Structures are given as C-alpha cells and as structure tokens.
C-alpha cells in the first residue's frame, strides 16, 4: 500500500510503546519514540528506529508536554503520531496541535475526543440516541421534585453528594421508606466534606460486571464492533485481568450490548479505534463512558479475531476502508490478559520498585507477552506500575485458564516484587474459575491477596538455594578444608 506517512512517532513509553513500534515496523514504516532520560535504557528505545529525548520537571511531565512532542515529531520527519493510552491519548488539544503541525493523529477527530471524553456530554449523546444510561436524578434541576424523581429511578439506588468524589457521603438506599433518612444523612455529609449539600441519585447495580465493546470506524462511514471484553477483576477501581468473551453474557445480551456500542459510536461520528464501556448486572446494562483511544486490554480482542488493532488504526488514519464488514468478524476461542504490575498484593497492592535481576517470560502455544521491560532495567516509582501483559488464549475458557496457570507459574521476574504470584493463585480461585467475579470482589475480600504459608519442603528448598548463592556462607565453608589441611600437615 501507498502510505501517506512513512514514519510514525510513538508518544508513549513502556509496553505499549514497544507494542506499537512492533506493528509500525512490520508494516514497513519507520518507528520513532520520544523518551525521558530515565527511560533511555528501555526496550522501546532499543527497538525504535530513532529515539528522541524529551525533558520535564518530572518524568511524567515530559510525556505530557504536547508542544515538545510535536516539535520532536517534526524534527524526526514523522508523518503521524500514535498516542498509545494514558498520557496525551485523550487530549483533544494535542490532537489539534498534531494536525496544525501537519501530522496525522492516530485516533478520532479532536471534536469527537472532546464530546465523548466529557462524561456529561457523552451521557447526553448516548441518552439522546435512545441507548441505556443509568437512570438518575439531579436535585438542583428541581429540588421540589427530587424525592419523587429519585423514587422513580427504582431501588436499590445510590445517593451521593452532587459535588462529591472518592466514595464520601455515598449511600445505598434499598427501599423507598429509607430514602428520607438517607437524604438527610447524605446532605449533611455533602455539606461537611464538599461544602455543598445538593444531591444526585442513580440506579445502583448490585455486584456489577464491567463490560466494554471494541469499535473500529473508518473515514468512509463504515463502523463495526469487535465484540466485548469483560474487565471485572479489579482492585481499587483498576483492572488487572480482562477476558473475552465475557462469561457473564448470554447470546442475546451480548448481541444487545455490542449493537448498542456500535450505535453509540456511529451516533458520535466516531472514527479509528475506541471502546464503549458499560456496567452490567441483573439483566440490565448501562453506558458508563467511552475511551477514545487504544486500550491496555486490546490484545484479548486481537487474539480472538486474528486482527492487529494497531495496524487497523494506522490503516484507518491513512484513509483506507475497513477490509471487513460486521458479518466477517467471527470470534474464535477464549482469551485472558493478566496485567503484570510492580506491586505487592499482600500489602494492599502497594507499588514496589527495584532492579530487574532476572527475567524469563513464558512462551508456548496460546501465550503472548507484551512486555515493556528488560533484565537490568530499574523499575521506579515515577510511572504507572504496569510492567508487561500476559495474554493467553485457548479453544475454550478452561483451556485458556490452564495455559494461564502454567504461564504464570513459569513467569520469572526477580528483583522487584510483582503481582505474578497473586495472579497465579487467582487462576485457581473458585470464583475466578467459575467466571463469577464482580468489580468489588477483590476489595471486599483482601484475604484473596494474602500469601499462603510455606510448607517445610518449600522452605528448605528456598533456604538451601539461598545458602548456596550466599557468598559469605560459601566463604565460611571454603575456609574449613584449608584449616583441616593445615592441621593435617602439622600432624605429619
């Protein structure tokens, strides 16, 4: 194909920069990365055809500096910019700055990023299209009718301070008779925490599942969905395991939710890759938000459909038509993604740091590792703790779980504590195996993250290996024979 750009700048770091570079190079294009000096020894810099250093007050600030990154792209002669996820990926001003500099931004149009990136505007667009949003009532719209409007949402409902956040002042109201008392309490808490006693009520979904749908749209009016991903295994509202297909959906609900996602994206005038997120429970689903970018968990979709989403993003940005219609997309098998993070699950998932002393990534049938690290690299507290992603697929969910268990068992990363051991244990947890984990599961049961006690054979195996590896212990043993030899000589 004749590309309108020959060179793509990746405005990101870590595993996603490595992953984008891989596809860019496979397509015969040149890959340029920007990097803060702290990442000079990273895998992304090593793999790229060119790496340009950027500066910032903090390492994160460098990757958020739109003007500096656009200037780097121009200097490097790049024709397009891929923002990855996080950092500037959903920043409409950055997308505009790219266009103004004559660079193709790999993503939707800036005004679409703006409209769908704002939760309130997006909700309005979705509701206006007749798609499901969680029923809600805003007190300040008309305080005199708030109680009646809240009651009409249905129970259980969630009552929260309108200007709230962080879970403060939130109350689950299970029946109508409890609404007046809960209203008084939430109002007084809202006043105390946020200096504003006005309230907001919405439908409360019990044990909710997080379901999201991948979409792709070209610049010729074609838009398809690429089925769902379920991301209900979360800690502190952050995903750690994703899978597709979702074990929570039957055929009918899957059809409805995927069709709704495509409809929402079409209505938004969406182009390139995006994800429509829903909350699902009790046979209902509601629009949550749209991510106007590539997502961390995109590989599970790639594994089931045999489609490289980064390649699709580049082709769409280059003005190509989608090479497939909705009916051509037939997912096959089951896939999981496990986020390998520098954190200690047994200590409240606190972030960890350290130098990667040894690294042996698993491989084999159905096993893919999207890694951002190399042995010898230092993991710092400067960035998000995501180090790599283990993606495992199989013909069935059972086969995929078995492969995941083996791959996590074989995954050796020493020098920086990670969640690999925890993920390995999670693959044997009855709720995980049954596909019954809801978004609050891990936070509600911190014991799941606890490390099991060592049995004696394991303890001995560890102590024996550590003793042999310990120089002072070897030195002490080595000193003994020479002493014996000296005594022996004296006797003779």
């Amino acid at each position, binding site marked *: 194909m004749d590309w309108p750009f020959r060179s793509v700048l990746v405005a990101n770091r870590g595993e996603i920069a490595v992953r984008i570079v891989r596809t860019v190079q496979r397509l015969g294009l040149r890959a340029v990365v920007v990097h803060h000096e702290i990442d000079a020894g990273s895998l992304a810099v090593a793999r790229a055809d060119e790496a340009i250093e950027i500066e910032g007050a903090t390492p994160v600030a460098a990757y958020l500096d739109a003007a500096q990154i656009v200037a780097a792209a121009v200097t490097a002669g790049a024709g397009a910019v891929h923002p990855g996820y996080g950092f500037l990926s959903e920043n409409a001003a950055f997308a505009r700055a790219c266009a103004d500099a004559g660079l193709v931004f790999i993503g939707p149009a800036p005004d679409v990023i703006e409209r769908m990136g704002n939760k309130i505007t997006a909700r309005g667009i979705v509701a206006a299209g007749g798609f499901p949003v969680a029923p809600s009532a805003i007190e300040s719209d008309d305080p005199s009718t708030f109680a009646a409007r809240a009651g009409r949402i249905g129970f259980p409902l969630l009552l929260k301070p309108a200007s709230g956040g962080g879970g403060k002042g939130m109350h689950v109201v299970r029946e109508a008779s409890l609404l007046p008392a809960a209203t008084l309490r939430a109002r007084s808490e809202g006043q105390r925490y946020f200096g504003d006693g006005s309230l907001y009520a919405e439908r409360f979904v019990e044990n909710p599942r997080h379901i999201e749908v991948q979409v792709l749209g070209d610049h010729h009016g074609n838009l398809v969905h690429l089925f769902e991903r379920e991301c209900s295994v979360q800690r502190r509202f952050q995903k750690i395991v994703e899978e597709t297909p979702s074990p929570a959906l039957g055929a009918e609900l899957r059809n409805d939710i995927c069709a709704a996602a495509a409809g929402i994206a079409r209505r938004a005038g969406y182009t390139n890759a995006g994800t429509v997120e829903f909350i699902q429970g009790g046979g209902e689903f509601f629009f949550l938000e749209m991510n106007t970018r590539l997502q961390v968990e995109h590989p599970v979709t790639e594994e089931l459909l045999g489609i490289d989403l980064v390649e699709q993003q580049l082709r769409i940005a280059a003005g190509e038509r989608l090479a497939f219609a909705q009916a051509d997309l037939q997912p096959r098998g089951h896939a999981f993604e496990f986020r390998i993070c520098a954190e*200690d699950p047994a*200590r409240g998932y*606190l*972030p*960890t*740091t350290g*130098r990667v*002393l*040894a690294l*042996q990534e698993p491989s084999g049938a159905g096993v893919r590792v999207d890694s951002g690290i190399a042995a010898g690299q230092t993991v710092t*507290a400067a960035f*998000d*703790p995501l180090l790599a992603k283990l993606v495992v697929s199989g013909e069935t969910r059972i086969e995929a779980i078995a492969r995941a268990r083996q791959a*996590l*068992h*074989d*995954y*050796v*990363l*020493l*020098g920086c*504590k*990670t969640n*690999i*051991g925890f993920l*390995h*244990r999670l693959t044997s947890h009855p709720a995980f195996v049954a596909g019954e984990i809801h978004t609050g599961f891990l936070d509600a049961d911190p014991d799941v993250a606890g*490390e099991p006690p*060592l049995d004696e*054979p*394991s*303890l*001995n*195996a*560890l*102590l*024996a*290996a*550590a*003793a*042999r*590896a*310990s*120089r*002072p*212990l*070897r030195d*002490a*043993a*080595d000193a*003994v*024979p020479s002493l014996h030899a000296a005594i022996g000589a004296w006797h003779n």
Partner: protein
Amino acid sequence: MGHALLLGGQLHEVWLSRSEGGGYDVHLGGKVIGDHGRAVAVAVSGDDVHLHLDGETHVICFVDALERHAAAASEEGGAVARAPMPGNVIAVSVAAGDAVRRGQPLLVIESMKMETTITAPCDGRVQDVHVTVGRTFERDAVLVTLEVEAA
C-alpha cells in the same frame, strides 16, 4: 550467634560444608536439607537473594553474625517507623521531642498518586525525624525514630 538467613521475618541459622562431589551440603537444625530437584531460580543483589519457586517469589536476606548482635542491642529502648513503600514525603506532623501515642499520625507519604499516613508503632517520644517534606526514599527507609520510655 552464627550467620543466618532472614525469610518472612524469621531467622534461620543455616551453614554450608563442602561435600564430597565438590559442591556444598546445606545444614539446618542438625539436618542436611536440599531442594529435592525442584526448580528454583535465583538472583543475588548484595545481601538479598531473590528466589522463584512454584510461581511465587521470595527474598531471603543474609544476616551477618556481627550485625545480628548490633541489631539486638539497638532494638532495646527504641522503635522506628519505616517506609512501607518507596515514595516521597508530603507532610510531617511531629518534631523531635514530641510525645506520641501508639497509632498517632507521624507523617504522610505519597507513592504513585496514593497517600499513606505513617503512624507511631508504639507510645514514646520522637527522637529524630529523618526526612523532610519533598524528600524521596526507598522502601524500608527509616522515617522516624522513637524513644520508648521504660515502663
């Protein structure tokens, strides 16, 4: 007191002897122990030995005989508040000389946009605050030392 290996807060007195085959035998509590052919991946960094066994990782720390004596002496009559994770200091709420109760906040630290309050491990008097606002530190760094009054 000989050399020891520290694993999970527990000290294990382990020693090596040269074996017939040119390797080492590992001794623990009067017995020779081994790994019975199980695959253990090992990486050494200073006094720390990082190990991988059956999908789990562990860190075993070598403790020198002399240091063990020194540590035993210093733990008497004192207590320390250590960093549970690497990060930087956001706020310090005590100063040297302050009397503190067990559980009282000493300082607030931040790591990857997460705030954690460090509290006093016991009743006592602040001997020294080893960090200031904005300072970064590694995990297990000593943040505050306390003087514990004799009962």
